[in-house]
């Protein structure tokens, strides 16, 4: 019951997925070939004997192997071949790794219309198979980036189809938002705006992370001189693990997928919470600081721990979801939240007085051996729906406008079958989204 399907789209989605599943396997004591460690090995790895809660994410075959309930897809084979040949190649069934031949070339139109449409039927069929193995599918977790061609185009196509076939299932997204100052593609703004417009009514909640914020965290807090994508993805993996911990372990205060939606999304369109993770401590500085529950809760409201670059002091909080894991007792949590509420810098909108949703899970955070993070006794991931996120959209829209005013790079989209009308429609939708956010922040 309560199974969740993870779908990883495009290079970003797949590489984040790689880090996430590696972490899940470590947390549940599953070896790279899918076999669970026996009880002696579990003890030496410091894990309790697992109840079967991880069946939400893993499917047990008759041979005793545990196969992740995941689908990896990309329009070109290179990245997926990395998984097929990598450390976890025997963890996944070959049908879970779907790759095409010709990639989307950073082009939303190719991912959505020309190249994507050829692969979508195969993908839906595989999803159907995975869904049939579930007794009570809760919903989908979709990992992708906004800026790439596959991540933007193929995802919007997929979301539309999933809404048709699985209308009552939750769809949560983990999206890599284009960083403000570092960009990996010139046409990122086009792809991001187009995909946000198409996915807006199909996604229930979109958790955003951006590379620049995480580069800074790795550089300043973890002492990594030149962070690679591996370090970044590991950090994102920790945040995702925190968010999904309630679904995979029994805990005193569990938070389901639907509970996220109910508590974080005040209006259907306002579903872009910001992710923050604490504590982020370098392995060299282990055990240095006092890391009580109030310390890590306070750290969540610190700009430097955010996984997205946007200043929450410029906006108001509409809802906050604090997901604790590790050695945490409700008494401390209540005290910490009370302390937060009394701070001037944390401002809530007038129409949302309580504001906090809490989840507690007793499984402490696991770290990857050889990684940069220190092992800590407790951690928290905060998902906050704040009006300050409009800054991120405004930045994106501005860049879009600059390019669109000159119709630059547009012909690449037109020749794949798109129309200019779609661009202006998408831009208007985002402008309306910005206005919606501003209205939220206004007082009565």
């Amino acid at each position, binding site marked *: 019951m309560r199974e969740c399907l993870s779908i990883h789209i495009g290079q970003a989605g797949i590489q984040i997925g790689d880090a996430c599943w590696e972490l899940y396997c470590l947390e549940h004591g599953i070896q790279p070939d899918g076999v669970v460690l026996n009880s002696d090995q579990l003890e030496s790895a410091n894990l309790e004997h697992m109840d079967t809660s991880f069946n939400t994410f893993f499917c047990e075959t008759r041979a005793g192997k545990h196969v992740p309930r995941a689908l990896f897809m990309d329009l070109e084979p290179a990245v997926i071949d990395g998984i097929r040949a990598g450390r976890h190649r025997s963890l996944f069934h070959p049908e879970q790794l779907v790759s095409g031949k010709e990639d989307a070339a950073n082009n939303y139109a190719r991912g959505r219309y020309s190249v994507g449409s050829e692969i979508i039927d195969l993908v839906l069929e595989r999803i159907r198979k995975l869904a049939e193995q579930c007794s009570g599918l809760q919903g989908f977790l979709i990992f992708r980036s906004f800026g790439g061609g596959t991540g933007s185009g193929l995802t919007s196509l997929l979301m539309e189809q999933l809404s048709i076939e699985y209308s009552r299932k939750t769809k949560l997204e983990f999206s890599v938002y284009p960083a403000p100052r570092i960009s990996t593609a010139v046409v990122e703004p086009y792809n991001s705006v187009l995909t946000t417009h198409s996915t807006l009514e199909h996604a229930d909640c979109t958790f955003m992370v951006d590379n620049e914020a995480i580069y800074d965290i790795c550089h300043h807090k973890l002492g990594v001189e*030149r962070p690679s994508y591996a370090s970044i993805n590991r950090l994102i993996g920790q945040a995702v693990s925190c968010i999904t911990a309630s679904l995979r372990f029994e805990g005193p205060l569990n938070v389901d997928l639907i509970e996220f939606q109910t508590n974080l999304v005040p209006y259907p369109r306002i579903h872009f919470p910001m992710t923050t993770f604490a504590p982020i401590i370098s392995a060299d*500085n282990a055990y240095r600081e006092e890391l009580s529950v109030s310390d890590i809760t306070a750290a969540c409201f610190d700009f430097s721990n955010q996984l997205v670059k946007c200043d929450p002091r410029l906006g108001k909080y509409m809802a906050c979801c604090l997901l604790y894991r590790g050695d945490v007792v409700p008494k401390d949590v209540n005290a910490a939240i009370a302390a937060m509420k009394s701070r001037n810098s944390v401002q809530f909108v007038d129409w949302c007085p309580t504001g906090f949703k809490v989840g507690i899970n007793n499984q402490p955070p696991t770290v990857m051996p050889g990684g940069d993070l220190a092992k800590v006794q407790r951690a928290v991931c905060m998902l906050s729906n704040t009006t300050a996120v409009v800054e991120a959209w405004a930045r994106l829209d501005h860049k879009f406008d600059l390019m669109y005013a000159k119709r630059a790079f547009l012909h690449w989209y037109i020749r794949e079958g798109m129309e200019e009308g779609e661009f202006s429609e998408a831009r208007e939708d985002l402008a309306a989204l910005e206005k919606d956010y501003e209205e939220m922040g206004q007082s009565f």
Partner: protein
Amino acid sequence: MNDTLTSDVIGRRVEVNGEHATVRFSGIVPPVAGLWLGVEWDNPERGKHDGSHEGTVYFKCRHPTGGSFIRPNKVNFGVDFLTAVKNRYVLEDGPEEDGKEQIVIIGNKPVETIGFDSIIKQQSENKLRFPSGSPSRTGTFPALKVLVLNRTGITWAEVLRCASGWPVLEELYLESNDLFISERPADVLQTVKLLDLSSNQLIDENQLFLIAYLPRLEQLILSDIGISTIHFPDAGTGHKTAMFPSLQYLVVNDNQISQWSFINELDKLPSLQALSCIRNPLTEGSKEAQTTRQLIIARIGQLKTLNKCEILPEERRGAELDYRKAFGNEWKKAGGHQDPDKNRPHEQFLEAHPRYQLLCLKYGAPEDGELKLHQPFLLKNQLLTLKIKYPNQVDQKVLEKQLPDSMTIQKVKGLLARLLKVPVSELLLSYESPKMPGREIELENDQQSLQFYSVESGDCLLVRW
């Protein structure tokens, strides 16, 4: 917990309004009646005096304002481990829920250890007061692998005394204890793989030698201890030391390292594979971070990871080649030479650049051409100073002229024709170079430049007609 003030209160750790202190004295302090506790604060500026009052010395403090007298009822002795655990978890289902429990009797206090085989005792977090000076610790922790004693005020002697009760200890964290390493750990701490001595400002390099022979020590964290130099006396330049035989990862962030000699010494460590060295005067400052990184890579040969970034083979190759080129001129001045027989750079150079000879063996000695300093692109640097001789005429003087190397032979002939009043078509030019005595090279193609014929400054043009 009700405490009666017996003499064993001396040495107890206490807390007053958030500030921590150690009890040093208990008794009467005339002329005021009643019992007083003399405490030495952790924060040396918190107190009023150094333990003496109106001339009488009651206890000693490390700082002149480190001590105070306090009434016993104002002081919080904290709770013992068991009570702290109960207080924390009593609302939850208590520790009985967890799988295994091992009750270990220490002295006469039962201490519940919760968890599995690896136990982490966070003494600083539970506000435990470490009972300093406990005489006999008869109990042992046969499975204790990780021990955190940060900010507990423990001394090195106490650590060694208790260490006999930690036979399989692998990780020991002793941050911020004002530690002074006074003796070598003889039979204890031999299984320790990770030692964290950060923020102990009293530690210097000589004390480090006392822990240099721990056989399994793989990770050593020495951030923020104020170290600036290190020298392994048992190894000469270019040799490996016998100290720290298994050390693979060294962290020296936030120190006072400003000399490259420190980095050179690290090359002597036999097993060093990873280093973190940020926020030191050497690495901050105007020089590019990139250059500093390259220099560190070149100076420590076996390093595989620097500042948590893997060093790829191409990066190492590039760094070593650049290093060899950058110091090539210095090497030559110090007596270095491409010919191995003549290659005898003096001691000072070898001390400052211990790996230089090795790099020359690996990549070959730097060529002179590589070492030529690039002159800035000014016109005067492009001019060749040439002598002009007339072998067929005896009485003509030898001229010296400065000509740009891009000048064509035709133009040179034109210049000479005007000078000598000889028609251009009759002139024949060649040149000879002091580098190749006896050889004359003809400059026959009028369209080519002096540079084409490799004419260099100091050469001699020969004009015949």
